[in-house]
């Protein structure tokens, strides 16, 4: 086994399929590194995710322990982001507040992307009536105002993280279906797909083995661009009191917590909201950069 050297990765004559794949991945990663917008987004999202994972190791105050004698303290050395109406440390609550948001984003994408991609690929590959029915269905779900529908679902099912995830995921899949359908419809006419079909490959095999892998990159770019919307909807649900129930820290709910005392204690509202913005912007930069890289015109 030869070492993972740069020349091994970048060779134009790979000796094995594995080498070719790893090499391709490496080349793509190098292009990501060369795109400042992409890198900025990656660093913002990556550091927030990392921070969320190592949180228990950090010397932070307990995000839920109340200390009423220290309530509404302005930012200081002991409480860099100040304290809230119940004397809880705003820094700890803001950092811990990333958890529910990231979990919701991850779950919604894990639910919506595969469903959307499968539906879109099936519609594009099979064509005809299947195509028309599936696309009308996606039109239907796309014509819904996402936030308002999520509010209605969450209002009926009650407060909670699972409800919020479900409510957001239901309207999440159509964009992926549309993108994938457009791509699958072009691949369907490609020679290698027709060759596979002539060799007797089943529709399912054509779909899963030949067409789907080619549709994934654009779906992933779309996912990065979709993530900020999910962040904002979940924060909006939290703000309206439909997110994770208290006392678990969540950004939207924290912004709402500080609302009553906004004019006296700006820090309770300001910091969690700033983190919503940072995470959303990180995802947006990442997605925008990836889209540039995926666009063959640029």
């Amino acid at each position, binding site marked *: 086994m030869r070492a993972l050297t740069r020349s091994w990765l970048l060779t134009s004559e790979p000796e094995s399929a594995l080498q070719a794949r790893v090499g391709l991945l490496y080349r793509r990663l190098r292009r990501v590194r060369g795109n400042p917008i992409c890198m900025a987004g990656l660093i913002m999202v990556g550091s927030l995710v990392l921070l969320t994972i190592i949180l228990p190791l950090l010397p932070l105050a307990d995000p839920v322990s109340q200390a009423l004698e220290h309530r509404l303290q302005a930012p200081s050395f002991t409480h860099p982001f100040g304290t809230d109406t119940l004397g809880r440390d705003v820094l700890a609550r803001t950092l811990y507040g990333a958890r529910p948001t990231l979990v919701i984003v991850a779950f919604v994408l894990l639910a919506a992307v595969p469903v959307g991609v499968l539906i879109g690929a099936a519609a594009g590959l099979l064509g005809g009536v299947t195509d028309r029915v599936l696309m009308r269905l996606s039109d239907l779900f796309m*014509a819904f*105002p996402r*936030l*308002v529908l999520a509010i209605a679902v969450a209002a009926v099912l009650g407060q909670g993280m699972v409800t919020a995830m479900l409510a957001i995921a239901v309207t999440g899949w159509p964009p992926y279906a549309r993108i994938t359908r457009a791509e699958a419809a072009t691949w369907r006419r490609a020679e290698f797909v027709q060759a596979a079909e002539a060799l007797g490959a089943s529709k399912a095999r054509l779909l899963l083995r030949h067409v789907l892998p080619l549709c994934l990159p654009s779906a992933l770019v779309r996912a990065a661009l979709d993530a900020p*919307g999910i962040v904002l909807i979940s924060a909006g649900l939290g703000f*309206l009191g439909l997110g994770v129930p208290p006392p678990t820290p969540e950004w939207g709910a924290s*912004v709402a917590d500080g609302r009553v005392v*906004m004019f006296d204690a700006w820090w309770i509202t300001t910091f969690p909201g700033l983190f919503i913005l940072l995470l959303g912007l990180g995802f947006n930069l990442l997605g925008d950069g990836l889209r540039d890289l995926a666009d063959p015109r640029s």
Partner: protein
Amino acid sequence: MRAGLGQEPRPARVRARRWLVAMLTHVATTALMLFGLLFVTFAIGRLLPMDPVLVIVGEHATPEAYQRVFHQMRLDRSVPAQFGLYLSDMARGDFGVSISTGSPIGSDLARFFPATLELATIGMIIGIVAGLPLGVVCARYAGRAADHAGRVFALLGHSMPVFWLGLLALLVFYARLGWVEGPGRLGVTYQYTVSEVTGLVLVDTLLSGDWAAFRDAVAHIVLPGGLLGLIAVGTVARMTRGFLLFQMRQDYVTVLRLKGLSESAILWRHALPNAFGPFFAVLAWTYAYLLEGAVLTETVFSWPGLGLYIAQSLFSGDIPAVLAGTLVVGVTFMALNVMGEAAQTAFDPRQRGA
């Protein structure tokens, strides 16, 4: 339906038939989507994990009262029958009675809707007036500093939690600087002197002829309207830029360049009109998006629109009112999308005479 070069123009009869088929498909699709929307709001209402009768009559109701409400809510009918009756109710504009306000939900919605419309419209106007030129500038200097600045601005707008920015704006411009008025649509002094005619506060204060009242209304709407406008500016600019760059790659632009026209003249006089089709589609789409964004903005600014109505009904557990509000926002959203699509076709120069 692009007519290729050297092709005979299609006879009028064929064109008319195609147009009719296209229109009918359009109408059928829209009707189907409306039906789907109604089905979803109905289904959400049926998902209620608790007993909907208990919510209304309370835990200590007599069995007779329980039975009466059970019958009134048609829970003794089959589910398809319930859905059918729900459809006919909606067609007549009968949304039921709000548990929290005690008045018919339909009249509640009619009272709250103009405020949302006004807010979203102001946001849209700001979005077009600022976003369109910004988009043209970004396209003109694509890949340069101005373009990057426009891009970051648009991305910021897409990542911005409106409710948070609204609170900060209230803190800075209302509480600290005192430049604008705070929550609500109109100061207490004018609340009873200005009579409601259109439900749009800017128009009503103008009609009352009281300039101080109009100024007060402007001072109230400037913050929430400007906030929504800020979000629209990014989207409109970004989309305008994209459409223009697509146009600038077309052959006719090369011809215009060869003729010696300046870049600005090509952009404003030739590329921009050709980009109007998709542009109008995006406007409709942005407008629909603003309508949705208004839900959270209204909550922050106590703006008495649909969003505040939905939020307040939410807090008082008034599910029928929440669902009716959802339906109205959904129908408006859908109508705007359909209008956007129609505008896109109408303004597409390739569709002329097709």
